[in-house]
């Protein structure tokens, strides 16, 4: 089974978002980078499927050329090769990203049985790139999948809705977008990291037409300082906490 996994690097935010002076981007000078949690699960799922069924995992990374760092990290857990779509620092909108990803998938020598993606990116969160890629490739798409089994060319997908799970089946080839919780991504081993250095990365350059959704500015919503009441520590705080719970009506 040959699987393509679409990924992109995003800043790893701690507890605060700091913007650049022009309010047009997140100031990433003091933060690290990684993948969106959904995408880490997509790579893990692909590696596991190939371990069980044979085949290959191709990463397709769209974004900054420095995304090679994230590619190598995912190669260290088992991805075989990668295509890096270099956007020259530009952040493509979902329409442009889907076009570039679909072009890379359809022009590759490998006929992919499965395209895995995150259901939405951590940063932009458009919830649409996977669907657009599927339409461009003429493939069916199942989104927001949290359970995935493949048997005889049919993918059985589960999606969480409230306290139940919906079941979808789809014949391959297909695009499936997944959510965090599908699995627990493994950590890279030292031999895995060594191997990753030598795996092939093909670099493609793309440029984009202007987006029809243009950002005027980014705004970090102002958090009203709630001014938390300090209940103290120890037994005194335990009594106070019980009282608060009575006051707000969760304890009668």
């Amino acid at each position: 089974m040959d699987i393509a996994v679409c990924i992109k690097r995003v800043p790893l935010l701690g507890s605060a978002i700091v913007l650049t002076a022009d309010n047009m981007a997140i100031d990433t000078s003091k933060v690290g980078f990684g993948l969106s949690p959904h995408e880490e699960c997509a790579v893990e799922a692909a590696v596991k499927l190939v371990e069980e069924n044979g085949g290959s995992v191709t990463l397709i990374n769209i974004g900054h050329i420095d995304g090679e760092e994230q590619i190598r990290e995912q190669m260290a857990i088992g991805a075989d090769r990668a295509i890096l779509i270099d956007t020259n620092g530009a952040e493509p909108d979902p329409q442009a990203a889907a076009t570039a990803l679909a072009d890379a998938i359809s022009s590759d020598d490998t006929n992919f049985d499965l395209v895995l993606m995150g259901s939405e990116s951590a940063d932009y969160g458009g919830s649409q790139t996977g669907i657009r890629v599927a339409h461009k490739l003429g493939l069916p798409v199942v989104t927001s999948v949290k359970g995935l089994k493949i048997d005889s060319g049919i993918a059985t997908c589960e999606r969480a809705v409230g306290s139940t799970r919906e079941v979808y089946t789809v014949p391959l080839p297909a695009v499936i977008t997944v959510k965090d919780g599908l699995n627990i991504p493994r950590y890279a081993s030292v031999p895995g990291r060594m191997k990753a250095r030598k795996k092939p990365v093909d670099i493609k350059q793309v440029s984009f037409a202007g987006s029809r959704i243009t950002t005027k500015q980014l705004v970090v919503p102002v958090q009203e300082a709630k001014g938390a009441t300090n209940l103290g520590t120890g037994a005194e705080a335990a009594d106070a906490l019980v009282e608060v719970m009575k006051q707000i009506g969760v304890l009668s």
Partner: protein
Amino acid sequence: MILVYAEHDRGELDPVTLQAISAAKALDADVQAVVVGHGAKDVAAELAAFGAVSVHVGNHPELLDFTPRAHARAVNALVTANSPRAVIAGGTPRGNEVLGHLAAMRDEPFASECVSIELASGDTAEIVRARWGGNLLDEATVTSSLLIATVQAHAFAATSADAPLSVSEFDVELADGDVLVRVEDRVGSSAGGVGLAEAKVVVSGGRGMDGPDAFVMLEEIAGVIGGAVGCSRVVTSAGWRPHAEQVGQTGTKVAPDLYLACGISGATQHIAGCKSAKTLIAINTDSQAPIMGFADYMVVDNVHTFLPLFIEKLKAASN
């Protein structure tokens, strides 16, 4: 005219759809709804009660349970026939999925998770959309004669606007493969007890719990007050608790009466999932932890020593 895609589950309307109708009403009095699938007609009256002046019910013998691309096909036919200025839906997995298909079919931009929408002159609309699970807002201009957008849950209040019920039915014309992906079965959740998303009280643990064992205390608290246990992403990544309990941007978003955060520092990923709690109480050794900025009450103590004391008092108080 503005067309709202009405999301329902076998005849039960999703509440965010009503918020979408109210958001649309603020843009144009002529708000029409489209609803597809088994039970579609049952929700028409409720759509009218919130202001839909016309409800289009799409029928097809193959369309029973949720079938995303076919629903988009039905919406697309109405768009072509009636040229609405905008198509709006609730910012839910289904709403985003159906409008994602619609946008792909028409090769139009799609602004998901909007918290503000204004129609400007010509083909432009000024929107504000949520990024990073709502931790960052994107003020943007969308250029298209057809604005396709979803509204973030709870960003708009649903207000009743009694329109007389007017229902028209139409046959949905499907294309090849439109019914290939659809809900085929439903299976019960493995999680017992109170569902996290609906729980009135969520007792949640983070890195400060130092391992799976201490979660027994959170289960005990949840048991006494009838709440659900939650956790941060660190906890599920470490395998201490199942992912179904994760609260956050990539887990469950909760809005309980009380959110009790135990040993949670308050990364943006986590705050995105719990900031809608009516009351947030944080127990943490660090009074300067980011979570304290969102808390109504804080206990500055170690969860391992404080929680046993608290459980004793809690049990005494509930007896």
